[in-house]
């Protein structure tokens, strides 16, 4: 297994898998993330990266688009 590293979600490349380590600091934003399934320990896959940093992740069968600023605040462990 390749070595795993903790990076902000925004750094994921298309096709990368990862596990979420931390959520954004702001409480309301964090709650909104959890509602959509973006929780600590959730498995994510980066299904698309757009130029400029907006990214689309898959959690289970759900696709979620995340803006660059927010994606920079979420840490993941890349597998």
């Amino acid at each position, binding site marked *: 297994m390749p070595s795993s590293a903790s990076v902000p979600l925004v750094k994921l490349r298309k096709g990368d898998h990862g596990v979420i380590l931390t959520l954004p600091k702001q*409480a*309301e*934003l*964090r*709650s*909104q*993330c*959890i*509602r*959509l*399934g973006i*929780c*600590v320990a959730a498995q994510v896959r980066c*299904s*698309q*990266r*757009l*130029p*400029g*940093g*907006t990214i*689309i992740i898959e*959690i*289970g*069968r*759900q*696709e*979620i*688009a*995340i*803006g*660059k*600023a*927010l994606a920079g605040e979420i840490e993941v462990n890349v597998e």
Partner: protein
Amino acid sequence: MNNLTPDEITEILPHRGHRHHGTGAAAFLEQGKTRLVLVGNPNVGKSMFFNYLTGLYVDVSNFPGTTVEVSHGDHPKYAVYDTPGIYGVSSFNDEERVARDIILEGDLILNVVDAVHLERDLFLTLQLIDMGKKMIVCLNMMDEAKSRGLAINVQELSARLGVPVLPTTAIHKTGFDRMEEQLAQACVGNSESSLHRRLHELLNRVGSQAEALMVLEGDSIIAERHGVPPGDEREQIYVERRNRVNRLLDKVVTATEQKHSISATLGRYATSPWLGFPFLAVILYALYLFVGTFIAGDVVDLTEGTIGNRMFEPWVKDHVAAWTATDIVVEKVGEDAAGEEITLATRTFNFPEGTDANPALLQQMDSFRDGGTNNLRYNFSSPWAVIFFGEFGAFSMTVTYLLFLLLPLVLGFYLSLSLLEDSGYLPRLATFVDRALTMLGLNGRAIIPLILGFGCVTMATITTRLLGTDREKRIATTILQFAIPCSAQLAVIAALLATAGTGATLVYVAVILTVFITIGTVLDKTLPGTSSPLLLDLPPMRLPRARNVLQKTWVKTLAFMKEATPWFFIGALAVSILQVTGLLQQWVDILAPITTGWLKLPAEASQAFVMGLVRRDFGAAGLYEMALTPMQVVVALTTITLFVPCIASLMVMLKERGTREGLVIWIGSWILAFGVGGLVALVVI
């Protein structure tokens, strides 16, 4: 109302000081009957359930203290309420607060979930169950779940949730025949045991399990209603609930591996860094063909040009002219060899006591009019007749404008938007343009008001409500009011630019784009605070259902017309009064030296600018009759695009953004328009 912070809203809603059912909802909801509340995530087909239960007679009204609309209808056994689509019950935005208050007052919950999207939807379901309300779950879009290879064990789901679960396909009404029977069996579900205990500890202090949950989840509004401190366990409860959803999914859903479906492929193309552009181009072109060419061209030519201007207005004015002093200018028009409209003959008929008093002259006029098409101009003597029935009159021009120009355009735009929304493209478009809009201090969601702005700036200004923060609403409103030409104006601008040539068009587009980007960037850099980041769930791409799309279009159009109509009348009245008192002319005279000296345009152009107040397109249309050089056209169009949107959009902006901010934007647009117009004139003329 809309620029209030959540705290201020609590001040206004009349629920302070009551203990139990003391919410804004209590007075709003019907008494006596069992209240059935429909709850679900956005776009799960909830409205079809609502229609099925209530039939034709539906009452749509604003929830007290908000701009959120709530539908209410009657069923023999229930008073049925539809709530806005939400991801969870809390108070993150107005929609959630309204849904929360109605749910709290409801007796029975019908929760509609999308079987294809259970990961997302079951969070809300479990939260509703934790609230301890009697409920049933309708598992909708079962046909689609099946075709996507999802097998859902309905019995198991029902057993684990502890409430009846009814599989349905709303579009075919499959399963609907069992809805009433299931509703009769609605019951309180299984909430998590440790949470249940904590809720019961709070119960004697707040009155209901639902409210106890809201307090425990840190809802400060509900906590204050009961005089208890809000809890700080929201995140812990949310995480536990999310884990319960995941465990539940493991037990009840089996997914068979699917070949990539067409919809998934389309969804990927729409957000692909490269293919996203041609995808967007095709959609925009289709939009242009439908709204720009068909609706704004063919349909409006018929409704405004023929029905409004040649039938409705002459009919109204003819009745007024019967009893009040007027001149009637009759212009006989025909077509020349090239098919262009030309004036054949003009004659003025004078009726100092109205047309009824002089049937002989009326006879003469009719024989002059005989044959071919006529344009009639009524110059009423009485200021009252001018105000209400004159050129800009409330009962002449405003009615034509609203019903025969704006209504078809708004219908066209909302139809397109509903199609894009229901197909799942809209959230992908928002994702695709997110980065570009971030540079303007907005996020991808702001694409919706910006697109609508090309239809009607007034409509778009109202739509800025969907943006996350006040900061974003402020930036979007400013961009809309300054730099986005509405469809009425676009038509005239396009025609003028066509005569002025490619060079002029390029200069014009470059100037407007620069201003557009500059405004956004400057505001983003100077306004305090930060804008909200994009966080958007992307539903699967699917074929929109005609009925759903039509219904959405109709509801949104009706809501807009209801809200905007008074402002168009008030605007027209204000302008007519300015006209009658001569103030309009004075304003034109004040602007004339600036127009000639600074913008290097003919003095009459100032007339066109002021006319832009009445209707944005009037301003541009006035330029037709002047002999302008191509570069003068650029200067005039730049000035007209940048400054004042029509008076109705000014009114709506004042209401949405508050008087002070609205006036700052408005006065700013005058300065910017003439400033930039003059700079362009310095360079190109």
